């Protein structure tokens, strides 16, 4: 099964309590479904996240592959 590296920032980093972690995911797992599993409270609360795979924006339905770096991006605040 694929192993992906998760990166967490801002409110999701605080919620998860770590900055990064490896995670084994099911074959065919998508970014959006993994987000709903890992952050059920934020998902239910309607936090709008974007998805990045290997440091590039990706659609919610992107399928994760072994070695991917995945990040859920909470609403941005740069500038």
């Amino acid at each position, binding site marked *: 099964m694929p192993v992906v590296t998760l990166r967490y920032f*801002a*409110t999701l980093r605080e919620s998860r309590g770590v900055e990064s972690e490896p995670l084994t995911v099911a074959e065919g797992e998508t970014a959006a479904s993994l987000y709903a599993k890992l952050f059920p409270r934020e998902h239910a609360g309607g936090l709008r996240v974007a998805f*990045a795979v290997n440091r*590039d924006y990706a659609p919610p339905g992107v399928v994760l592959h072994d070695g991917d770096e995945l990040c859920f*991006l909470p609403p941005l605040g*740069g*500038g």
Partner: protein
Amino acid sequence: MVLLTHDPIDVAALRAQLEATRHGAILIFEGVVRDNFEGRAVLGLEYEAYPEMALAELEKIVAEVKQRWPGASMGIAHRLGRLGLGETSVVIVTAAPHRAECYEASRHGIEALKARVPIWKKELYADGASWRENTPG
């Protein structure tokens, strides 16, 4: 040149990257930490980035500007960590042969940064803190 830094931004160094006699107009945009947000007193900000992706997105913005406004060039620096009131959080230097495209490109730079570059901002109050989302304009 694009960079993320925990130190105060060296605006002169960023601007010096653009020096070229083919430019007629230069714009330097600075975002400054305000003392209030919607009326609530702010003591400071704390910026956090997904650094590898933020730098990649900043490079894309600079490349887009060069392609969309021929002859234009841009440099962007963003502060990270804790910032006090009046400190500069972001600097975007833009140069172009004519002022109209310089304004367009500069504005594009800051709007794209706010919309796409993975940086987050926590507002610090006397009685707490909260992650603050960008809004248009």
